[in-house]
């Protein structure tokens, strides 16, 4: 018996929804269409690169005192140079739009050469103290280089590496799962983190509005909002702890501002991620701001404890209704743009 897809096709033909000649074309396409190994090969390439860089990175330090280590350095330099040369040979001419993808291999070899550059830089610093104690410079060199390469070669992976290097310069972790791997950023890093995040969000907005590499916006926005909102949360709760209510209110308003931008971008690109991110952080900021305002107004009129209790009884069921309304209308909210 014929495979199910051919039965569907025959049914559609019998219903008169498809002319027989066209059905034959589709049938031929279904039969002869090659099986794509695109994503499997990409995954294997990336896995190979990660393993290779991880292995070489350890080997370099293990053989610091032996003769073998010159060989290892030579291999790293050779691999870096040749993969970069391959990527450079296959690069597309520069454009502010999305460059046509000329070669998958070139994309991954560029990534490999950037990672090997980091290995090499770390080695030079460890062995010869190339940057001395100017650690900022050690992070600034890859940042500048990777930003240039990301724009010149139109490569989102290298852009992520550039942003990561920039964040390392500031001293924070921008990785999407940073909250789960390294927790909230330390209190003293919340101001630089907030500034970095706002800067990245600004870069994202500018790219979107000026149509300069608009396909980079997602990376800027996600990494930027991640670090900005985490840092702002740390700031918010720190201010509350120390009784700086008005400063906390300002931070809450800032969070709401960031969330507004995220909602705008989410509706523009129909992205669930940004909408949910904005809803979650926005809810926390809004609730905190409400508590601060209520506290300031109500403390003098009625007892603070009584007021907060009766308000909470009202507020949380209403938030639940709000959540349900959001989920029910999530498609409408995204697609009405």
């Amino acid at each position, binding site marked *: 018996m014929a495979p199910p897809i051919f039965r569907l096709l025959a049914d559609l033909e019998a219903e008169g929804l498809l002319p027989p000649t066209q059905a034959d074309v589709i049938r031929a396409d279904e039969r002869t269409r090659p099986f794509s190994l695109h994503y499997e090969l990409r995954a294997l390439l990336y896995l190979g690169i990660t393993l290779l860089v991880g292995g070489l990175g350890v080997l370099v330090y293990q053989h610091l005192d032996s003769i073998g280590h010159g060989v290892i350095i030579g291999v790293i330099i050779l691999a870096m140079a040749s993969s970069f040369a391959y990527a450079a040979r296959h690069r597309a001419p520069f454009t502010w739009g999305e460059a046509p993808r000329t070669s998958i291999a070139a994309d991954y070899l560029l990534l490999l050469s950037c990672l090997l550059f980091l290995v090499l830089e770390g080695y030079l610093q460890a062995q010869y103290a190339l940057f001395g104690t100017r650690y900022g410079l050690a992070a600034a060199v890859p940042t500048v280089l990777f930003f240039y390469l990301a724009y010149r070669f139109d490569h989102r992976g290298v852009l992520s590496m550039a942003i990561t290097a920039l964040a390392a310069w500031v001293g924070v972790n921008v990785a999407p799962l940073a909250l789960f791997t390294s927790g909230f950023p330390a209190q003293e890093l919340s101001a630089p983190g907030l500034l970095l995040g706002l800067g990245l969000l600004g870069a994202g907005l500018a790219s979107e509005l000026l149509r300069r590499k608009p396909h980079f916006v997602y990376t800027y926005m996600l990494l930027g909002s991640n670090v900005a909102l985490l840092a702002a949360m740390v700031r918010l709760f720190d201010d509350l702890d120390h009784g700086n209510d008005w400063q906390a209110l300002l931070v809450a308003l800032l969070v709401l501002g960031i969330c507004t931008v995220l909602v705008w971008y989410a509706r523009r690109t129909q992205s669930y991620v940004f909408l949910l991110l904005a809803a979650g952080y926005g809810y926390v900021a809004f609730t905190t701001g409400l508590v601060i305002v209520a506290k300031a107004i109500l403390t003098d009129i009625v007892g603070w404890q009584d007021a907060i209790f009766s308000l909470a009884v009202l507020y949380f069921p209403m938030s639940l209704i709000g959540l*349900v309304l959001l989920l029910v209308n999530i498609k409408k909210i995204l697609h009405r743009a």
Partner: protein
Amino acid sequence: MNTKAYPATWAQGDAVRAAASRWQRRGLLTPAQRATIEAAHPVTYYRPNNWIRVLLFVVTLLGAGTAMASATITTAFELGPVAYALLTLIGHLAALELLIKKSRYYRSGVDNALLYGALLAWAFLIACLGRDTDPSALTDPALWRWLVPVLLALLAALVRYADPLVAATSFAAAFALLFNVLLQSALGRLLLPFGMMAAAGALLLALRQLPARDDYFYYRSAGLVLRTLGLAVFYLAGNYLVVREGNAQLLGGGGPSTQIPLAPLFYVFTAGIPLVYIGLALRRHDRLLLTLGLLALAFSIFTLRNYRSLLPPEIAATVGGAVLLLGALAALRYLRTPRHGLTAAADAEARPYFNLESLVVAETAHAPAAPEPGFEFGGGHSGGGGADSSY
């Protein structure tokens, strides 16, 4: 009575619309033709978006729980657990059938919750009737008295509702039963891996008949779940590490595991099954088989390294990474023009995942940092990587 709870046309319509959308993306249909096809096969059932489905699922569970609690309170706890379980079962099934008929629910969250609730009530009922069995112990010789009725109910539900989660649970129940029966005799213990492999193989062969059936689309998602689990169990039951460590556990655990009988046979299975999966997948253009084959291959390499440390991890990572990289590059180059029905180009119908990819890079692409002074290498299995972002 119809054996299927949901009209088969619902699943069929889903398949038609999905195919039409795919053909349009490939440029084989005009948008107008696709619209005509969709108008002729409209969505006639109720299934909201995923967020609402989860919400409806939770609300239904809460509602059913409340109804049960009020029934228990109004009867003043006088009827005994069996009667309450029976009541719950009947109530859930009645509500389920009614909602499918009247409101045309199709995996909307509500019907899922009612189905699982009914099956749980049945499992509880059987456990109440056979008080001497302990459903939590896999080795209990009387386990079948609980497991067989539960499995029968699951299979009946699978045939009628074709639910993927019920399919997975039926699979687990069937293999738990097989495991339990084989454990009862010395011969069974010896044949345990082969029994598992034979059962999984039989399931896989049976599933090959599914595409030829008229109701293929109705059972497609359930069949996919069963096939995935069957392939996984077929490999794992023959894997040397699983068999050796499982054997050690059965013999009482404690201490390092010892060599197992027929070890060479399991070496062959461990090395061969992933390669067979990958080879068959490439021949039959089967993505599920390919993915599982690659995962199985990774687990086989882990198995090998677990017992025979051929190279230090950092050298193994370097060499393995280089081989993988060069191999994938060669494959890319070789398949630039499609050969043997394979291509390195992306499917025109596939949605790109580049955003996801740049995030993976942000999460994982760090060069290993220089070790702190005084840090000694040696031992440990990780090959470095995952450096902190702070310098």
